[in-house]
């Protein structure tokens, strides 16, 4: 395929959809002398037409195909796969949109529409002339998954993946898996025993040969790419050899040091040589080196010689294909909610502390005693929304589980003769069997007061809860023995650091941002990284488990498919041209470029194809597959050079979000001036000043850059870069004798399609008023560019 490739062009009438407004016959006649074959079709997408195209390609040995019809989003895939059957590489197919972006929007201007269709097709032809075949590369992923967090979410996902046959590395920061769920005596709405249902699953994790359980450890570094992540994990010094430890507990019995137990929320003690709770997994003791006095009693006592007080931390490395983040939640620090007196008044406990008080294995052995005072309690008040739904002092969101766990604790207390008052703003029970559970709590005798609690006033052993009872329009002062506050659930401390390491965004409340909040809720914004449970937002165990199953499935899906590496990557034209200045490294929003031995090296997997690096290179050493400099210029020139339109405006549009918006404007038959000619690009950051000058040199009177908003479309940060560049370009245009008003930049959301009519019309009117760019400037620009 050297020299002049043989090009075939088909122009569709789409019944009357195109043919009624664009003189298709005239267009075909005009281009016939320029190509090997040109034909009009009534319906190009019909089966006979497609078969005809295939036969013609074979008969005439056509090397490029240009199809002028509806939006490529409609039938491109059909045409491309059919043409592949007759040996035409899909990169050699050019689609020209003359329906949504031409005939449907210029119904009142058939002459303009016909000229525009002809221009757009010429752009397609010229671009096709310099196209090259491209092959998408494929890569296999490492069939192993890292799961961060060993709560019910991480446990569920691990078991599911191991069952499927994938190798799982489950990393947990504490000495045992189990998370928060193992701290609860009962769970709503079934009131079944939390430990009874979770313990067997924890045991399965430790027994499953496919699960590599790494406890008392933290992920410290993640590098590589989706499908091939390299992970460093820091193993905290445990002081006990897990292979030797038989879990007999001798070390703990002889240990003289006592510190507050994390498992019991600090309400009871544990030893410095400890196991967090009896059914811990792994059943291995841990030396808490922060508390340990190194007296050596445990070393002497250990019958297995398993203890080493000089143990040091170690870093291990893992290679995995996918990562699931399941780091769960913690409660907002109740000390930061001074209104509720936590830390000041011993009669105030958090809901998590109450879980431990209610547990037969808790700090009070299940007796209804406040461990902070040692006194029995007979009358308890719950304060809901203690910091949740509070934009001023706490978190603005609803923590979603507090209503239900307060109802659960209330039932457990009521069953044992305790009087329970629940101070609430709204009781929210969205979930199966939850409203019934609320009703059951009322039947058992809980007393509900609608109104947020404003203060706590200690009075002797008791404490007075003050709030309005809005139903009675009266202020209530309720003296109780114990106050249980329900602070907001928030992401854990280390989540933010992990999110940065994994390069996934979080929302304003710190929760992990989903790829799509409705339609892709357990995928993160990055390929190969998934999340489940509370790290995605407050939720109950049922939903957490469902999300864990879903995240496991997403990981399986991701790892089993060979990853297609789209042929849209930036590449170095010639290593000789590159002097390793690193400008491209700075520009790349994906961190896909590095300088190796003084030359830019582009990671094909990381490169998203946004094109932002190409204008950054001062040597012009970079180009992009499928959208080469040569192709882009050929298309610009093809569209403009021979056009006879009075006003010519070239609009570069971001090809996912904005292009869709422009198509929608077509679908709605919004009329706008036929001067607008569109070229889709991955992002406006792909454009060099040179391209814009080129457009002006060959006939454009105005150039528009319509970019997607930062958080829409696949290229995110590239859209920010493009805005900065457009600002610079505007000034530089003036230096080349082109008024800066001739360059328009704006961002368009998909729902903005209604506004496009106004955007296009406004710019057209302005350019038309000012008149075309003068020939002298054009001639000068051509001279400069050649």
């Amino acid at each position, binding site marked *: 395929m050297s020299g002049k490739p043989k090009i075939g062009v088909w122009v569709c009438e789409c019944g009357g959809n195109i043919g009624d407004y664009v003189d298709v016959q005239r267009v075909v006649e005009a281009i016939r002398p320029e190509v090997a074959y040109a034909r009009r079709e009534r319906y190009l997408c019909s089966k006979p037409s497609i078969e005809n195209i295939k036969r013609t390609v074979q008969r005439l040995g056509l090397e490029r195909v240009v199809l002028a019809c509806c939006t490529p989003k409609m039938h491109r895939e059909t045409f491309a796969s059919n043409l592949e059957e007759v040996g035409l590489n899909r990169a050699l197919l050019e689609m020209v949109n003359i329906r949504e972006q031409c005939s449907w929007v210029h119904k009142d201007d058939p002459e303009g529409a016909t000229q525009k269709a002809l221009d757009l097709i010429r752009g397609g032809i010229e671009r096709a002339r310099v196209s090259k075949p491209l092959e998408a590369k494929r890569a296999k992923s490492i069939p192993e998954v890292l799961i961060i967090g060993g709560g019910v979410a991480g446990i569920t996902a691990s078991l599911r993946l191991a069952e499927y046959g994938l190798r799982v590395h489950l990393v947990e920061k504490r000495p045992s898996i189990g998370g928060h769920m193992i701290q609860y005596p009962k769970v709503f709405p079934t009131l079944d025993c939390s430990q009874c249902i979770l313990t067997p699953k924890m045991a399965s994790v430790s027994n499953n040969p496919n699960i590599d359980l790494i406890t008392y450890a933290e992920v410290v570094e993640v590098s590589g790419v989706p499908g091939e992540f390299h992970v460093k994990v820091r193993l905290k010094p445990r002081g006990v050899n897990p292979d030797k430890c038989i879990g007999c507990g001798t070390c703990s019995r002889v240990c003289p040091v006592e510190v507050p137990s994390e498992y019991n929320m600090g309400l009871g003690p544990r030893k410095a040589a400890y196991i967090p709770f009896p059914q811990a997994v792994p059943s291995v003791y841990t030396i808490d080196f922060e508390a340990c006095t190194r007296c050596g009693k445990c070393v002497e006592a250990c019958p297995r010689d398993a203890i080493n007080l000089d143990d040091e931390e170690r870093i291990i490395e893992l290679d995995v294909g996918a990562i699931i983040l399941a780091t769960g939640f913690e409660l907002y620090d109740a000390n930061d909610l001074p209104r509720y007196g936590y830390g000041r008044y011993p009669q105030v406990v958090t809901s998590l502390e109450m879980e431990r008080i209610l547990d037969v294995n808790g700090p009070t052995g299940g007796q209804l005693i406040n461990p902070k005072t040692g006194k029995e309690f007979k009358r308890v008040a719950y304060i809901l*929304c203690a910091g949740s739904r509070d934009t001023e002092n706490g978190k603005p969101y609803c923590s979603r589980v507090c209503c239900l766990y307060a109802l659960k604790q209330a039932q457990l207390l009521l069953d044992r003769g305790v009087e329970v008052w629940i101070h609430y703003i709204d009781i929210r029970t969205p979930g199966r069997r939850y409203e019934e559970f609320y009703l059951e709590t009322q039947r058992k005798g809980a007393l509900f007061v609608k*109104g*947020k609690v404003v203060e706590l006033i200690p009075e002797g052993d008791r404490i007075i809860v003050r709030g309005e009872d809005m139903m009675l*329009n009266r202020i209530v002062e309720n003296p109780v023995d114990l106050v249980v506050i329900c602070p907001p659930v928030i992401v854990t401390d280390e989540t933010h650091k992990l999110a940065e390491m994994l390069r996934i965004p979080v929302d304003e409340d710190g929760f992990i941002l989903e790829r799509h909040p409705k339609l892709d809720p357990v995928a993160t914004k990055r390929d190969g990284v998934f999340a489940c449970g509370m790290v995605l937002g407050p939720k109950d165990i049922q939903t957490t488990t469902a999300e864990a199953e879903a995240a496991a499935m997403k990981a399986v899906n991701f790892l089993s498919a060979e990853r297609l590496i789209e042929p849209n990557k930036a590449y170095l034209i010639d290593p000789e041209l590159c002097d390793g200045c690193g400008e491209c490294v700075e520009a790349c929003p994906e961190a896909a470029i590095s300088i190796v031995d003084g030359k830019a090296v582009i990671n094909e997997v990381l490169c998203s194809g946004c094109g932002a690096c190409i204008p950054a290179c001062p040597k012009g050493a970079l180009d992009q597959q499928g959208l080469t400099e040569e192709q882009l210029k050929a298309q610009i020139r093809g569209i403009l050079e021979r056009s006879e339109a009075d006003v010519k405006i070239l609009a570069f549009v971001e090809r996912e979000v904005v292009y869709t918006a422009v198509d929608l404007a077509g679908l709605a038959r919004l009329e706008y001036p036929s001067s607008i000619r569109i070229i889709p690009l991955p992002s406006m950051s792909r454009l060099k000043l040179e391209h814009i000058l080129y457009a002006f040199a060959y006939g454009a009177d105005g150039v528009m850059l319509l970019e997607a908003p930062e958080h829409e479309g696949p290229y995110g940060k590239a859209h920010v870069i493009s805005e900065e560049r457009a600002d610079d370009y505007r000034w530089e245009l003036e230096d080349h004798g082109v008024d800066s008003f001739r360059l328009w930049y704006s961002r368009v959301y998909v729902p903005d399609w209604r506004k496009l009519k106004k955007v296009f019309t406004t710019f057209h009117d302005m350019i038309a008023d000012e008149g075309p760019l003068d020939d002298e400037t054009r001639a000068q620009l051509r001279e400069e560019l050649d």
Partner: protein
Amino acid sequence: MIVDVEEIDSRFLRRLKSEFDESYLSCFQCGVCSASCPVIEIEGRFNPRRLVKMARLGFKDRVLSSEYIWLCSMCLLCEERCPQGVRIPEVMTALRNLAVEEGYIPEPMRRIQRLLVESGRLYPIDDFTAEERAERGLPEVEAEPEFVKRLAG
């Protein structure tokens, strides 16, 4: 009592919005303001939460004619504690301004105004006070300040 929705005045709602910011629209009726309010301890029928609710619903005449909007002591405790950032004392001030515009001024307020118009002061500066001031080295004050009279008029 049945609420008569015919009483709702949408112009009043627009007026309220333009009179101050829209923060009061985010009130979700939690009762923090009422339970924090020191005025309630003295006058149990005063309830800022209900006033905000009624204003929010657009019961113009009921709200503006209510003497309760004049009872807020502007202590700002509710504002400090409101979880939704509603500045209730400012709502009260706006309601008072609108009430005056509509001619709803409670009799005690009228009396205060009359006093100010007539004498420029709520409490007269008598010889005793003047002497006390002089003893403490405070400057002399106008017995009946004209500018206050003009303002109050």
